[in-house]
């Protein structure tokens, strides 16, 4: 044993009551648990779907029933769809004024800091509670630019109905995988965003998803269209209180980035540790367009999350910056996919992961280059930090290149916190715990600096919460 090695000690987890508060308000309506055509029809009726959407849902259900579970990735043995309630309508309408939102729901979002963030730094906010959006608002000056930010249900039947129908689940069809099919059958809530050509939305829009009901699922759909030479920063956050039964999140995000447009999509995922997070996100980027993903994954019992970018137009580019923190009882399988489908496209994937207390972090990626995609560049970098030998860190990247005029690089590192770095900080007066927290925060810094300040602060707080659970 080296001179400065320490005995491992354990301290109680820090209080997470901000995230773990459970709402007691009875829902207005919920379907039975399980998944049948009658349940899907009931959801569609509750939501006053247009006829095409009911047909869509039922076809998606058929697809779901025919598809097998994936033969790779984390175990989904603990997820029994027969025990999941797929639709829970809270006792609230959608409001655009927080004072109109029922007190208990409003207080939940107040404690999560959403109204405050809206006042301080957001152009618009959508807040979803269980299966429905309870608050949606956009600043008048943003609306005046022609920006549309509304809930999906309104978008389905309003002036943008045709646009929505043309884009809904075209990028992520129900046939993509079993949980995309599930989403197609029972989706509810989410946001529609439309940014007209040439409009720069200089302040972010944010959607926050709160799943309160025990044993329920949340299946929100986010559809964003950023037209030619426009730009937008969209932030999503999520959380849920912890129960001793499984909850399921199978949302879907579809992003259409037109020629010369730029979209930054930031996510801080903080689901409770009984959640199965099987989310699907995909972006289609046209000529000279850019998609930037910033992703922090801290919650869920089991997570499968691989935002995919299809670089369809010449010179399109993608950047993905992500961090994953897998603690006790968690298996977070995260990463990114990029398809270079046009010449002179470029991508950069940079991820960090931390595993502790038996947590399991898997980095999974794919970089594909189509035969017609000459002049492409891609670099993938993955660093994994393990804080103890109870945990696991695995990297499973794949590169599939079908053109010789490319420049593709990949690197990955796995290791522990440098003992020399800890020794140095302790020699400067820090405790071992503080030294390790500082090093881990520094490890995460390239990601946190990409977030707006409030969210960087939240991410750093989450790191401190996780790190304070153990020393070692």
């Amino acid at each position: 044993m080296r001179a400065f090695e320490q005995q491992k000690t354990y301290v109680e987890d820090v209080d997470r009551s901000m995230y773990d508060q459970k709402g007691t308000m009875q829902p207005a309506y919920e379907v039975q648990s399980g998944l049948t055509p009658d349940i899907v029809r009931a959801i569609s009726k509750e939501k006053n779907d247009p006829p095409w959407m009911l047909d869509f849902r039922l076809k998606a259900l058929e697809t779901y029933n025919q598809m097998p579970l994936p033969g790779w990735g984390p175990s989904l043995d603990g997820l029994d769809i027969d025990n999941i309630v797929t639709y829970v309508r809270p006792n609230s309408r959608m409001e655009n004024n927080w004072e109109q939102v029922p007190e208990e729901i409003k207080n939940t979002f107040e404690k999560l800091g959403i109204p405050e963030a809206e006042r301080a730094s957001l152009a618009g906010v959508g807040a979803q509670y269980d299966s429905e959006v309870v608050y949606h608002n956009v600043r008048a000056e943003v609306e005046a630019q022609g920006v549309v930010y509304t809930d999906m249900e309104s978008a389905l039947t309003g002036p943008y109905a045709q646009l929505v129908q043309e884009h809904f689940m075209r990028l992520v069809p129900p046939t993509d995988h079993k949980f995309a099919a599930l989403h197609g059958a029972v989706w509810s809530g989410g946001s529609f965003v439309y940014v007209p050509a040439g409009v720069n939305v200089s302040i972010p829009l944010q959607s926050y998803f709160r799943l309160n009901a025990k044993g329920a699922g949340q299946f929100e759909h986010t559809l964003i269209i950023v037209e030619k030479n426009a730009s937008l920063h969209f932030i999503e956050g999520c959380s849920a209180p912890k129960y001793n039964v499984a909850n399921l999140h199978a949302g879907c995000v579809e992003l259409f980035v037109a020629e010369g447009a730029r979209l930054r999509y930031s996510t801080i995922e903080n689901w409770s540790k009984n959640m199965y997070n099987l989310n699907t996100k995909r972006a289609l980027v046209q000529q000279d367009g850019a998609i930037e993903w910033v992703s922090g994954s801290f919650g869920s019992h089991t997570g499968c999350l691989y935002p995919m970018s299809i670089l369809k137009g010449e010179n399109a580019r993608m950047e993905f910056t992500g961090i994953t923190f897998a603690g006790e009882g968690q298996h977070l399988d995260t990463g990114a996919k990029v398809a270079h489908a046009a010449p002179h496209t470029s991508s950069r994937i940079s991820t960090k992961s931390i595993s502790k207390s038996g947590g399991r972090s898997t980095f999974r990626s794919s970089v594909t280059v189509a035969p017609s995609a000459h002049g492409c560049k891609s670099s993938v970098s993955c660093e994994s930090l393990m804080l103890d030998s109870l945990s696991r860190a695995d990297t499973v990247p794949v590169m599939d290149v079908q053109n010789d005029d490319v420049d593709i690089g990949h690197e990955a590192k796995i290791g522990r916190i440098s003992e020399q770095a800890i020794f140095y900080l302790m020699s400067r007066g820090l405790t071992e715990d503080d030294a390790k927290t500082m090093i881990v925060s520094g490890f995460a810094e390239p990601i946190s600096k990409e977030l707006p300040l409030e969210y960087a602060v939240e991410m750093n707080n989450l790191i401190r919460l996780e790190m304070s659970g153990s020393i070692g």
Partner: protein
Amino acid sequence: MQTNLQHINTLPMPTWRWLGVNEAAFSGQLPEMKEASLQAPSLPQSVTLLNAPPTAAGTIATGMGQEVESFIEANTNAGQLLHIAPGAVPATQLVYRYTLTQNNPSVVDDTVILAEKNSKITLVQVFASQDASPHLHAGRTRIIAQEGSEVYLVQLQLLNGSSTAFCSVGVQAHKNAKVHLTQVELGAQHSFAGSEATLAGQGSHMENNTVYLGGGAQQLDYNYITRHIAPETTSNMQAAGALFGSSGKIYRGTIDFVSGAARSVGHQQENILLFSPKARNRTTPLILCGEENVEGQHAATIGRVDEAKQFYMQTRGLSEDTIKRLMVEAQFSPILAALPGEALQNEVAQRLAQQMAEM
């Protein structure tokens, strides 16, 4: 004979099916089994032949998987069970040269190398076609490297373009043992190779080098796994390749740190030069880690010859073909320069030049 093998070179941790890298399959006609044509070396006194594989050999898995191993077991027509005495350090390398012809179209060899404590051995296996008829090499080599031993195994696959090659190696390395495996894959229409090394003893080391060249419609498929079980084990996995024509290649390289392998270090690197827009390269470098106190790194670079370098050489009067040959030789040289003995290096260089001339 029609042969169907469905599970070859299986990736230790599967990923998305649509990428087509989780495993390989082979279905096709293979030459009939006849006697193998072998030029075997004289064995020094310290190297003897065993009557049966040692019990430990039965516990060694090889990189290409059980289905290939079963095929080899059922069709063996060659192979050696070599025992290297404790402390033995034979002065010369042992070269086994198999020549494949129309009359001797198949070599299915099952070889075991048991290197006793503190012994050191260099073994070269050459599989070369002498005519254009279809040939088969299917080989399993299992290496038991006891404490302090060093085993250098070089496998040269020089089959013609209508042949099939399966080259599977398994290694069990004990305390402070070192195993160096170099596989040079320059031929065959279907070239499969793999190794699985278990670093079971403290301080053991595995060096795994692969050189491959794909042209025409060749299909290359490789799977290398190093499992660090004991503490203070080290491994280095290097691959250098070049793809021409409409060849396709899948390379899987896995470093697996099992809990208990504290203070172990594993590195993996693959560099690929692409010379054709129709060639397809798939690379899957995995690191699996259940032990905190390790260092694992991997890297891959994929692309064509740097344009600036190419321009410079052209201004010096070099033809495009010469430039390609030089760049490929430079890409391969770190691995080929480490081949034991100048004669072997020259043989490989000549064969490489011949292959390049046909690309």
